[in-house]
């Protein structure tokens, strides 16, 4: 049996939640003081995901970098692979918000999109 310690992010209480696991099965969730904490803990141990936000190199624009994000959250364990792929890539101005800058980032199947406009130089 494995015990996982989490801090709930739903409200400023920040309940310390302990999830007891047997392999992939959740045996018991303790420490949450409301139902939202239960749902949060379940998702965090089953498939934690995060949206990655960073910047990507731009050529031919008024600025050298544009802010971007993964269109959907990616598995938490793959954040650094996603960062590496984004840091190797570059894109050309003009760029509009929502433009796909990388189609499938680091094999996650999730695109990276621009979050800011860049005009051509």
């Amino acid at each position, binding site marked *: 049996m494995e015990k996982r310690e989490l801090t709930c992010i739903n409200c400023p*209480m920040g309940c310390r939640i302990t999830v007891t696991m047997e392999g992939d099965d959740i045996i018991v969730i303790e420490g949450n003081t409301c139902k939202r904490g239960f749902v949060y803990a379940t998702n965090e141990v089953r498939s934690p995901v995060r949206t990655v936000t960073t910047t990507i190199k731009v050529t031919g624009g008024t600025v050298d970098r544009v802010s971007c*994000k993964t269109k959907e959250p990616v598995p938490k364990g793959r954040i650094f692979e996603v960062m590496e792929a984004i840091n190797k890539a570059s894109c050309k101005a003009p760029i509009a918000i929502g433009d796909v800058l990388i189609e499938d980032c680091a094999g996650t199947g999730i695109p990276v999109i621009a979050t800011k406009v860049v005009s051509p130089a």
Partner: protein
Amino acid sequence: MKADIVIVGGGPAGLAAAIAAAKEDSNLNILILERDRELGGILNQCIHNGFGLHTFNEELTGPEYAARFEEQLDGLGIRYMLDTMVLDVASSVVTAVNSKEGVFTVDCGAVVLCMGCRERPRGALNIPGLRPAGVFTAGTAQRLVNIEGFMPGKEVVILGSGDIGLIMARRMTLEGAKVKAVCELMPYSGGLKRNIVQCLDDFDIPLLLSHTVIDIKGKERVTSVVIAEVDEKSKPVPGTEQEIACDTLLLSCGLIPENELSRSAGVKINPATNGPVVNESFETSIPGVFACGNVLHVHDLVDYVSEESGRAGRSAARFVKANKAEEGPVINIKNGNGVRYTVPSFVRLNELEDDLVIRFRSGNVYKDSYINVLFDGETKLHRRKQIITPGEMEQVILKKEELSGAPSEILIEITEN
């Protein structure tokens, strides 16, 4: 130059105020003066997500949130001047300077102050030690990394656990730096819980509560900092010192509303917020001069800035049209036990748009306690809260009908039972 309303600052507050004023009266001539090279203010460097949940019901990044407002601004044909610094504000004339016009004045009917806030720098923190390169405020580092594309360092210690510091701990880590610790002087963090989990815990960055930096070492560049635990009086505890090798120290130790213009204009300042004292219309002590956003009081959520600034913009539009309601009762809002300040400070009942939203911060952490609202000493609201912390702004909303009895005083307090 002439304008009906001059808006000082084109960040989230200025954008929302301008849009709301234009929607209130499309004939108004509104002018935004912005000192940066683009509109959007601090949102431009806040490339992380979490903005707009209240306003748009979706999670946006800072630049996306700003762009939503800029589109509306363009749609309404609102004028703005970039790279333009306001030098002086009076109720009917604003003086500014830029490279094209030189020094110029704008005659106006109303002014909305939207200058935002500044970070508390090293000089205001009295950290002992040498003066090497490598000490940055977290916001400066954020601008360098996210806009200029430079990494300020490789091995980092962060002092202060405000949200910008937490966000930068993650940002620096993602870009390959090693963040060794976040030290917080207080026994609790000033940042949002979500940021502590997703910016520190996710990357195993230690948060050291009741700790501070007591020495900075390095001749040309920071080589290490010495941290120590502090007691209840914030004094370092002997024997708890640890030296951490690093090349960079980031400071996230609070924000100060930028009120130099307000002060020289003679606007009355609330010492608890370092921002202007305002009424229900976000009007300062000078008629026709309004204030909103972080120049008024520091917010955790931009959504609340946009909402309050909308009110300020509409009020400015009504002021210009001289649409004043008849004078009526004035209700003073008082800080009771545990409440550091409230915005607004007083309410002119006849000028109230609709419901009265009172925002406030506590001075301490309270668990299983109550927020009470008293009208002239009589309890009107007694609401249980599982937790109240200084890091998260609280609010109470009072219906206009509830205020019809026109109490002379509303007291907000936090109690154990």
